[in-house]
C-alpha cells in the first residue's frame, strides 16, 4: 500500500517535471533559469533512481512469493464435469464438487495410525518347536480414534508375511452409567497379564512356555465378544472386576465352538496398590472356560469337552520418579492351571513363569525368565526353560533385542537358541503400556 502511494506520487511528480522540459524547448532559457533547470534535472535523476529502485524491490517481492500467495482465495473446491446424459433431467448441472481433496479439512478426523514392525531371527537348534531363521514376524497396523462423545474405537491388524488377521478391533463405551467400562468387538481377553499384551510391548522376543502350552499360544485367548469392567469401591486399593463373554474360538487347540451356545467366558479380578511413589504391586486372579476341540469328529462336537483355566498373576514395579527415564525394575510371575476334558480323560496341567527386567541405563534393559509348564493335552509332558534377554532402545520408537533361550522338552532334545529382534514404530505416538 505504502509502496504504491510512493509510486503514484513519483508518477505525478514525474509528470509535473516533464511539463517544464517541453516548454523550455521553445525559447532560449535565461541564466538563472539554466541553474533552475540543472537543479530540476538533478531532482529528476534522483526520482528516476528511486523509482527504479522501488520497481526492482517490487519485482523482487513478487518473485519471492509463490503464485498461491498472490491469490489468497486460491484453494478452490476441485470440480468435475456432469456426466454426459445426466444434465437437464432434473439432476445437477454445471461443475460438480469433488470431495476428499488433498487439503480437505475432514482429514483431521482420520484416526491415529501407526505401524509397528517386528522382525525376528533365530539361530541354534530346536527340533520340537522350530522358528524360521529370519522372518518378518508381524507388522501391526493400528487405527484409533474417538467415535463420538460416547465411545472410541481401536483396530489392530496383524500382518504376517503372507496373511493378515484382525488382532483386535473393538468399540469402547466410556460413558455407560454405573461406572461400567464396556468393550464390544474382537479383543485380547483379560486373562492374566501376558495374554492381554501385544507382542511389541512384551519384554521378550517370545511368549512364555506356559502361555504357549496352556493358554492358546501366541494369539492366546483372542476372540469376538463383549467385555464389562467395573471398579469396586473400597478404602484400601484399586480393585477392578472384569467379565467377558466370547464366541468360543481361541488358539488352535484351546477353545472351539461348534454351536452358538458354546460361548467361552473370562473373569478377572485385579488389585493394585502403590507401596510408595516409586513402587507398586499389581495382583490378579483369572478364570476362563470354554469348549475344546478334542471331541470334534468330522466337524461335529461329539465329545462336548470343555477346558477350564485358572490363573494367578503378580507384578512388582519399581521406578524412582526422579530418575524415571534411567532406572526401573519390573518383576512378574503368572501361575496357570489347566483342566482339560478330552476323550482319554481329564488332563490337569500346571505351568508358570517368573521374570525380572531391570533397566540399568536410559537405553538398556536386561532380563531373566524362568519357564515351567505341562502340556494341556498331555499333562505328563513337562517343558522347562530359561532365558536371558538384553534390550537396547535407540529411541522411543525402535528397539533391538537379543535373547538366549534354553528349553528342555520331554518329547525331544534340549534346545539352545539365540533369538534376536528388531522392532520399529512409525506413525502416531501410542500410549505407553502399564
Amino acid at each position, binding site marked *: 500500500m505504502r509502496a504504491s502511494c510512493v509510486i503514484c506520487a513519483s508518477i505525478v511528480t514525474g509528470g509535473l517535471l516533464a511539463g517544464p522540459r517541453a516548454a523550455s524547448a521553445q525559447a532560449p532559457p535565461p541564466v538563472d533559469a539554466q541553474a533552475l533547470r540543472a537543479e530540476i534535472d538533478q531532482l529528476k535523476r534522483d526520482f528516476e533512481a528511486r523509482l527504479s529502485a522501488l520497481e526492482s524491490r517490487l519485482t523482487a517481492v513478487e518473485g519471492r512469493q509463490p503464485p498461491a500467495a498472490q491469490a489468497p482465495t486460491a484453494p478452490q473446491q476441485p470440480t468435475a464435469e456432469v456426466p454426459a446424459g445426466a444434465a437437464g433431467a432434473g439432476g445437477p448441472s454445471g461443475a460438480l464438487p469433488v470431495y476428499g481433496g488433498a487439503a480437505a479439512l475432514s482429514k483431521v478426523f482420520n484416526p491415529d495410525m501407526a505401524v509397528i514392525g517386528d522382525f525376528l531371527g533365530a539361530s541354534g537348534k530346536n527340533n520340537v518347536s522350530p522358528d524360521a531363521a529370519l522372518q518378518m514376524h508381524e507388522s501391526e497396523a493400528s487405527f484409533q480414534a474417538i467415535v463420538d462423545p460416547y465411545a472410541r474405537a481401536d483396530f489392530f491388524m496383524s500382518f504376517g508375511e503372507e496373511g493378515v488377521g484382525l488382532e483386535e478391533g473393538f468399540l469402547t463405551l466410556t460413558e455407560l452409567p454405573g461406572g461400567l467400562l464396556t468393550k464390544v468387538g474382537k479383543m485380547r481377553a483379560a486373562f492374566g497379564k501376558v495374554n492381554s499384551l501385544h507382542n511389541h510391548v512384551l519384554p521378550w522376543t517370545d511368549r512364555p512356555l506356559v502361555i504357549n502350552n496352556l493358554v492358546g499360544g501366541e494369539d492366546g485367548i483372542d476372540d469376538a465378544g463383549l467385555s464389562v469392567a467395573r471398579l469396586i469401591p473400597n478404602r484400601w486399593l484399586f480393585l477392578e472386576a472384569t467379565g467377558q463373554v466370547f464366541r468360543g474360538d481361541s488358539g488352535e487347540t484351546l477353545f472351539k465352538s461348534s454351536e452358538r451356545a458354546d460361548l467361552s467366558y473370562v473373569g478377572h479380578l485385579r488389585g493394585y496398590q502403590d507401596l510408595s511413589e516409586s513402587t507398586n504391586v499389581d495382583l490378579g486372579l483369572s478364570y476362563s472356560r470354554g469348549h475344546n476341540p478334542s471331541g470334534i469328529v468330522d466337524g461335529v462336537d461329539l465329545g462336548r469337552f470343555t477346558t477350564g483355566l485358572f490363573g494367578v498373576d503378580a507384578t512388582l514395579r519399581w521406578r524412582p*520418579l526422579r530418575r*524415571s527415564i534411567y532406572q526401573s525394575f519390573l518383576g512378574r510371575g503368572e501361575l496357570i492351571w489347566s483342566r482339560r476334558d478330552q476323550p482319554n480323560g481329564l488332563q490337569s496341567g500346571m505351568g508358570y513363569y517368573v521374570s525380572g527386567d531391570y533397566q540399568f541405563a536410559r537405553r538398556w534393559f536386561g532380563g531373566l525368565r524362568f519357564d515351567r509348564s505341562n502340556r494341556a493335552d498331555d499333562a505328563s509332558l513337562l517343558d522347562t526353560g530359561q532365558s536371558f534377554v538384553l534390550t537396547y532402545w535407540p529411541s*522411543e520408537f525402535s528397539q533391538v533385542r537379543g535373547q538366549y533361550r534354553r528349553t528342555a522338552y520331554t518329547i525331544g532334545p534340549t534346545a539352545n537358541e539365540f533369538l534376536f529382534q528388531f522392532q520399529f514404530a512409525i506413525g502416531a*505416538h501410542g500410549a505407553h503400556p502399564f
Partner: protein
Amino acid sequence: MKKTASLAALVAVACLVVSPPARAQGKLTVMATIEDLASIAREVGGDRITVESIAKGYQDPHFVEAKPSFILKLQKADLLIVVGRELEIGWMPPLIQQSRNRKVQSGAEGYLDASAQAKILDIPQGQITRAMGDVHPLGNPHYWLDPENGKIVAREIAAKLAQFRPNDKAYFDLRLADFVNRLNEAEKRWLAMMAPYNGVKVVTYHRSFPNFADRFGLDVIGYVEPRPGIPPSPSHTLDLIQEMKRQQIKIILMEPYFDQKTPNSIASQTGAQVLVMPPSVGGEKTVTDYFKLFDYDINLLVNALKQAGAKPSGD
C-alpha cells in the same frame, strides 16, 4: 446481552438439575496433570476447590506412568486440566479412557486444555519427521515457564470454574485479579533482576525453557540433547563443547530429572556451570508454588551469572 443472560440462567438451571444438591455445595474436585497447573488452579480456586496433580514436579512429564491409582483420582474429578500440545500423549489417554468419568473425557465440559490461549513457541513449520527426534507437532509444551502464559492459563481456569459454580464467579474473579496483580508485581521484579543479563547465551539440556528464555532475555544457543528426546551422543557433545568455547558460554541449564554426567563433563571442559533448574513447581523442595518457581529459577540464574561475571554478549 439478554441472550447471554438467558444462556447463563439456562446453564445455572441445567447445573441445578443435573448435579445433585449435595455436590453443588461441596468443593469442586480438580485434577491437573502437572503441579504448575495445579498451583495456578489453587490460586484461582481458593478454598472452593480441591486440586491435585498427577505428575510430580521432579519427574519427567513426558514419561509418567499411567498407574491405576490415578484412575481412581480421575474417576472423582469434576475438572481435569491438561498441559496439552501432546505433552501427556504417552500416559493421559489410557487414564482418561479408564476413568469411567464422562466429565473429563477429551472435549467434554470438564476437560480443559490449558494451552488453548497460551503463547506457544517452536511450532514446527513444514514437513516434520521423527528424524528430528520426539518433536511435538503442536509446538513446545513447556509454555507455563512464562508468567504471561501463567496469567492466560489462570483466566481460563477461572472461567471454567465459574462455569461449574456460577454462584462463586465473583469469588473466582476476585482471586484471579489478585493473582494477576501479584504476578505482575513479581514479574517486574524478576525482569529487573534479569535485565542486566539480557541476551546472555546459555545451553539447556532439553528444550524445556524456550518460553522462559523468551520472557527473561536468555539466548539458548544449543542443547545437550542432539535432538528432542534423544540422549546425548559423543559427537554432538564434542560439537557442543566447541561451540560453547567459541561463544564463551558459561551456563548450562538442566532439568532435575536428567543425568548430570554429560552436562558435568561439558562443564569441566568449557568452564561453564551446570544449573539444575526445576522447570516445574515441586522440582525442588522449596518450590511449592508458581511464584516460588520463578523466584528459585531466577535467583539461581542471577547468582550463577554474577559468579561467572557474565556480561550480555553483543553489548
